[in-house]
């Protein structure tokens, strides 16, 4: 058994030794150092303490035979056969990973009336698509979906499984991982494959300030979830390839204590705080009517329109759309500021946005200090052309 052992005789300065632990797991009791329940087994005390003061006793565990597990599988996330785009992004990644170790790519799809709907997957270079088509699987229910997933894993033995970090994926993947007694890494942003088929999983930790590289070295399958829009989807091939395999499962595995009564479309988020994309109108907008142009751009990008304080004060836009210290604080994935100079009060409400694109005529505008992409130019020269292009791409 892996253990941390403290050798009291090797510790000269107890206080100094205790201060090594960032988690407060070392404490003094009756002149001795003790390890408490805050210990994360990070082994810092072993590395940084006086030699022999803390030793880590590792026990050799029996190594599993990794060659018994072959293939990279992707869970097909869908509602009524409408496939969530994260699925294609994961297929793209799975193909890349599989190529490195010469493994096949699999997809697993479960649902009801899937016979035709699963055919779309044939255009994405998957080797085998395993389909469980049963009326009990019409909607996501945690128990039968987990049972089906387990059946797939036990029969096919994929070395790695990628699941989209959707609402469904984020509860199905952990449930399956626990049932298979294996490891699962959430929200990976980078995935790679090593020669010995260990999946290299990298994810942000502690609010994204630190990246952690995680392995599942002695368990199979290795499971990871990935959020939407992290990986790149492959191009849809016009030719079909691969094979669809319809799978069977005993009806006793399809029992459930969850009854899905309905699925309803959500009302569109109307608050600027909830939007992934924001287009911001600043004083560079000359007339009230011109706001319609920025509103159109926001719509085309699936985002919301926001504004600076002067625009709200002029009554051109509603106060609830105002960003800044006297307005709302936003943190969208993308913010495009149009004719915004970037006063401190405004910047304080948006400088944590993931990506900032600023359009301003004045090269010296303070907004360019926080922007990632600084477009020096007139919004009236740039936006109409962009809208044109966006419309053309939607029409295509």
């Amino acid at each position, binding site marked *: 058994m892996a253990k941390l052992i403290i050798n009291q005789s090797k510790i000269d300065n107890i206080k100094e030794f205790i201060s090594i632990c960032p988690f407060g797991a070392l404490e003094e009791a009756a002149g001795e150092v003790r390890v408490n329940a805050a210990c994360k087994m990070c082994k*810092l005390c072993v590395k940084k303490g006086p030699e022999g003061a803390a030793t880590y006793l590792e026990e050799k565990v029996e190594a599993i035979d990794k060659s018994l597990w072959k293939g990279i599988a992707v869970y097909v996330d869908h509602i009524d056969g409408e496939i969530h785009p994260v699925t294609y992004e994961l297929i793209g990644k799975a193909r890349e990973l599989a190529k490195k170790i010469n493994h096949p790519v699999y997809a697993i799809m479960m649902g009801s009336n899937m016979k035709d709907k699963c055919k779309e997957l044939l255009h994405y270079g998957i080797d085998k698509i395993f389909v469980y088509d049963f009326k009990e699987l019409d909607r996501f229910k945690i128990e039968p979906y987990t049972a089906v997933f387990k059946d797939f894993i036990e029969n096919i033995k994929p070395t790695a499984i990628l699941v989209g970090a959707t609402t469904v994926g984020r509860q199905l993947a*952990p449930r399956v991982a626990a049932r298979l007694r294996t490891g*699962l890494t959430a929200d990976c942003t980078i995935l790679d494959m090593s020669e010995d088929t260990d999946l290299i999983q990298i994810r942000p930790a502690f609010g994204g300030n630190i*990246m952690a590289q995680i392995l599942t070295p002695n368990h199979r399958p290795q499971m990871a979830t990935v959020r939407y829009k992290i990986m790149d989807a492959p191009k849809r091939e016009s030719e079909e390839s691969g094979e669809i395999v319809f799978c069977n499962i005993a009806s006793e595995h399809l029992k459930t204590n969850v009854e899905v009564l309905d699925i309803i479309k959500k009302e569109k988020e109307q608050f600027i705080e909830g939007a992934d994309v924001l287009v911001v109108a600043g004083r560079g907008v000359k007339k009230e009517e011109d706001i319609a142009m920025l509103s159109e751009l926001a719509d085309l990008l699936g985002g919301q329109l926001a504004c600076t304080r002067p625009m709200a004060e002029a009554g051109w836009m509603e106060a609830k759309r105002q960003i800044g210290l006297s307005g709302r604080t936003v943190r969208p994935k993308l913010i495009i500021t149009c004719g915004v100079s970037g006063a401190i009060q405004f910047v304080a409400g948006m400088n944590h946005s993931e990506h900032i694109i600023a359009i301003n005529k004045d090269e010296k505008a303070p907004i360019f200090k926080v922007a990632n992409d600084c477009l*020096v130019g007139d919004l009236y020269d740039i936006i109409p052309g*962009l809208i044109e292009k966006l419309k053309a791409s939607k029409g295509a």
Partner: protein
Amino acid sequence: MNILVCIKQVPETNKVEVDPVTGVLKRNGVSSKMNPYDLYAIETALRIREEKGGTITVITMGPNQAMSVIREAFSMGADKGAIISDRKFGGADVLATSYTISQGIKKLGQFDLILCGKQTTDGDTAQVGPEVAEWLQIPSVSNVCRIKEIHDDSIIVEMDMTEDIEIAKVAFPCLLSVGKDIFTPRLPSFLKKQASKEREITVIAFDDLEDKNEKHYGLNGSPTQVQRIFPPEVNSEQVIWKGNGLELANRLYDKLEELKLV
């Protein structure tokens, strides 16, 4: 109704640094608080108790200091509290953590409803709740944004699926993890705090658990291993674009494509 709420103590801020030489986390002197999502779970439990009656127990796992989040739950109105604490649980990943919690829950007894916050702000995985449900062999629903109806044998909830809402009826016993939209958490009450000052907190250590195989806990019971941690590449580089309106429009379009918005 017998309700259990799983709560966790997390660091006050996420601002941590990595020592560039050793690659080790610098975390000295960080103060702690209750995981903010857990406040929603506690509030949900209080509302259900108001309607249906019953007892609310809170459970946490961690070092002794984590008892302060149980005290906080008491001052919001929870009835009982337990902490699972042992150095043998150190270094646990999601699988070992969820297993340890499920063992602790079994020790406490039977519950009709187990509530969790959607995720923690330090681990950020949202995985422990569903894994606990698996170990206990009960159904679970994550991302619950509304409780519609509570019956004697089941509960009807709305699950937030980003673009859709799924309405599901789940039989008791079950586990729900709740999001921020469910209720506004109440503030702790000073009177309740005073009244619960002396209330005993159950301590559950390794020796109290039914499964005493050390291989199932802590680092030993964890399939995933953190190989290394490193600071993220900061993309603070600024690009300045100049040109005529059309050139800039085209370049902006390409950028939007790169950002996967087209």
